[in-house]
């Protein structure tokens, strides 16, 4: 029983912590973000398994976590608003060529990040070539270029 409770408590706790850390925290991870992620994973593992290293415990834990994930995705599908609260919504950062600076500040993204996303798949060189830049729910910035 304890394994299930441990699993669920940690699942909810981690979800909350990463949700309030903001979208950009672990997206586009730098080397340091990667190290941070490894440390968090290791710490969480200890809290999840405790001293019980049995196969049964691991098995119960894995099933609990997967079931929690499935339940959550079903809930998100059924209650649209719940999904929006949990995952966030896409946010327009650059609207019809105009940079929305107050939003950039709020989501901790700067113009360099937008330019980086503009260069990567699209090969754009300047901000004025971008029509829309959108911060997606997963923290990725998508770029829609201006029509020539």
């Amino acid at each position, binding site marked *: 029983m304890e394994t299930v409770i441990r699993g669920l408590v940690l699942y909810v706790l981690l979800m909350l912590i990463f949700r*309030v850390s903001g979208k950009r925290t672990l997206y586009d991870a730098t080397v340091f973000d990667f190290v941070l992620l490894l440390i968090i994973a290791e710490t969480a593992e200890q809290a999840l398994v*405790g001293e019980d290293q049995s196969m049964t415990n691991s098995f119960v834990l894995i099933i609990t976590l997967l079931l929690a994930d499935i339940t959550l995705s079903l809930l998100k599908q059924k209650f649209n608003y719940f999904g*929006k609260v949990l995952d966030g*919504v896409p*946010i*327009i950062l650059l*609207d019809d060529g105009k940079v929305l600076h107050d939003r950039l500040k*709020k989501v901790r993204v700067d113009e360099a990040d937008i330019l980086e996303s503009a260069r990567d798949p699209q090969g754009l060189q300047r901000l004025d070539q971008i029509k829309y830049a959108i911060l997606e729910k997963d923290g990725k910035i998508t770029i*829609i270029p201006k029509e020539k």
Partner: protein
Amino acid sequence: MKKHKGELEIDEDIKLESANWKAQRVAWVLMALVVIAALLGFTGNGGIGDLHRLKAGNSTEGLEVECERFLRRGAPSEFKVQLAPSSGDSHTDLQLSKNFYEKLEVDKVVPEPSEVFTHEQGITYRFASVNQPFTVIFYLKPKAMGSVPLHISTAGKKVNITPFIYP
């Protein structure tokens, strides 16, 4: 799906996102408070100042108990007892309430007691007397959670101490 400026199909909800940004800022403050509380010793494992130490009794009166105010379940901890030997007796008895062995796992006792026995009130550790005050250290791991009231007594003195165990 809503259309932004008649062309971009996007499910943007700036009201919800603004609320989310506010909630994020509040959560960051809470996270900072957790770290400050941990530094001050509210989560155990040491801390600034003397807040994390829990003491009861007085060594000059013959019995003093010291442990951490906040313990963590499964994390090793120490429980220190300073005792004065009972006069004239060849041994000194230290009696602890039932909670002590039911909610805490005693890994080691230094010095080793000559005899240990349980009874209705709890558990008694009997130490061979050395005719001068001595310290007993219990190395233990908490098994339970929450407040654990402990009653510790010798032949002439009784003290109570209530550490808190985090999950």
